[in-house]
């Protein structure tokens, strides 16, 4: 059997989450409750979908910072389209449109990175500006609060609904299933298809991949289209759940998402990353964003806390790797 590695990021992050919950439970007995859990799950939906995409890119040895702009673009463009052209469109079709818009924008990244061979960070920094600039210049800047009925229906569709002892309500929308489905599909792609094998292979040793005939460019192109599609879907889900489509939303989240993925053990150098780690990283970031106050840290320290977590989460493995390298020398 495989030996269990206690130093893996997943384990560390899990331990931090447990510690967080223990401290929170002591200071607020209501913390360990279903509403806390549904809040956590609800707040993880959009961030989680983003993180899955960001993780796949990191595994392949690249980095994408443009996905939030892709999401905002797909979300807002779809809402505008629905409002003006087909207000009665059912939500699945709207979601498909948003996903396609995302995929199309992703293919621009794919073209520049996979076909032209430009550096991924710089390309996606550039397309982040382009997508966002295009959206706000040509599509609109006004938020749409009167969502088309299809999207409103989706947002009201609850998986779990309940009442607390104090009379307040809690709920978990079906949107959470989207995250579950995406996680399952991505798991299948990464672990059960030759494409997924190729993604890990090009992230681990690009030259070896080329030598055994893996089409590195095609694989990379697929990845950026895939990430774009996920972002588009995350965008439309975000708008539906918020019941408002605001073109200024989402952009700015990209570094937090990458932070969550890296906390979960994905390596910036490529080849390593798991869905488990990614979701643990997302859970930790969401906990810090929402519940820091519960463990007695004022919410103004949120940013410091996330920064410190990133430094520790990446610093410990980097420090270990550096020492291991010095040993191997």
């Amino acid at each position, binding site marked *: 059997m495989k030996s269990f590695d206690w130093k893996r990021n997943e384990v560390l992050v899990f331990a931090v989450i447990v510690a967080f919950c223990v401290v929170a439970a002591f200071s607020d007995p209501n913390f360990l409750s279903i509403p806390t859990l549904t809040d956590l799950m609800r707040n993880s939906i959009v961030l989680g979908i983003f993180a899955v995409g960001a993780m796949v890119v990191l595994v392949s040895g690249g980095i994408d910072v443009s996905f939030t702009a892709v999401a905002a673009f797909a979300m807002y463009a779809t809402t505008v389209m629905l409002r003006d052209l087909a207000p009665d469109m059912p939500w699945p079709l709207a979601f498909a449109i948003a996903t396609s818009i995302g995929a199309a924008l992703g293919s621009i990244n794919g073209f520049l990175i996979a076909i032209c061979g430009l550096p991924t960070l710089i390309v996606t920094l550039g397309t982040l*500006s382009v997508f966002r600039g295009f959206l706000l210049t040509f599509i609109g800047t006004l938020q749409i609060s009167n969502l088309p009925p299809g999207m409103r229906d989706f947002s009201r569709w609850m998986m779990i609904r309940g009442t607390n002892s104090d009379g307040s309500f809690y709920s978990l929308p079906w949107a959470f299933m989207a995250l579950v489905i995406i996680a399952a599909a991505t798991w299948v792609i990464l672990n059960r298809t030759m494409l997924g094998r190729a993604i890990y292979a090009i992230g681990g040793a690009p030259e070896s991949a080329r030598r055994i005939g893996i089409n590195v460019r095609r694989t990379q192109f697929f990845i950026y289209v895939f990430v774009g599609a996920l972002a588009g879907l995350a965008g439309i889900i975000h708008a539906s759940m918020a019941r408002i489509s605001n073109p200024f939303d989402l952009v700015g989240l990209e570094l937090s998402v990458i932070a969550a993925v890296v906390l979960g053990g994905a390596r910036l150098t490529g080849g390593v990353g798991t869905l488990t780690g990614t979701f643990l990283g997302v859970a930790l970031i969401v906990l810090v964003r929402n519940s820091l106050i519960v463990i007695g840290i004022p919410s103004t320290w949120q940013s*410091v806390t996330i920064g410190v977590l990133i430094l520790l989460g990446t610093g410990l493995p980097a420090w270990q790797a550096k020492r291991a390298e010095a040993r191997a020398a």
Partner: protein
Amino acid sequence: MINRILHSTEGRLAAITLGVFVAMAILVPDRFLSPANLTSMAFQFPEFAILALAVSVAMLTGGIDLSVVGVANLSSVIAALFMSHFAGDGQGAGLLIAAALLSLSIGLTAGLFNGLLVAKFGLPPILATLGSGLVFAGLAIAMTGGSAVMGLPPAVAWVGNGTLLGIPVPLVILAILAAGVGWALKYTAFGQKTRMFGANPLAARYAAMGTERVLLKVYGLCGMLSAVAGLIVMSRANSAKADYGSSYVLLAVLIAVLGGVNPYGGYGRIIGVVLAVLSMQFLSSGLNLLQVTNFAREMIWGILLIAVMLINLVSFRSKP
């Protein structure tokens, strides 16, 4: 001759800058070339030019500094808190000098912290400065509760809005810093080591060049440059706030790459960065006069960045 100019990254950039300037001068001749517009441009771009300078120096080592805005805001918030605490009735010139020194030392400390993370702990620069940037910005939020620090002495305005012999002070500061950094990169042992480290970090280590010290100095310098930019921003806004100029991080990276600094390290010239800033500013200001929104400018910047990279790609490939 023209061919030779167009074959160097900086040459092409100079042509682009000139082209943008001429195009804007033709499109909106009366207003673009008006003294008022030229002066206002001269006040606008130094702050992000200095941040771009900082990012460029980090990039020269093959790293990056995403914490520049965090450092700028943290140092200016502390400087502002310091000044508002001690502010009296006078102009407060002495106080300003003390605050400037304080903010520079904070910038230096923050930069050295980044350097330590990269050099000693082996964190990838992107993650180290991403995380530390959040910490710095977060400290500024924690100190101020997220609101702006006001009540600064009158002397502060001079830094961002004053003129020296008719030249805007921010421009003077930028000119001194750009010339200084450009000179240091070329004519000092530190500059040569920085470039060599960026060209091949492993070989630099094997040559016993003192790589850790170089990285510490590089990120320390980045921190100090960021602090200067923070002072200018503070002066122009007449206040300090934890989230001023948050879009400047990506802008600074964009300018550095546009200026021909190789993101993998080893190559980059300050003149290129200056030209990139100028072309961005001309474009930005001209588009502004043409009633183009801020958002369209953001888009055009992105297109410009990608276009320049594609041009560089084609011209590098065509080289024998």
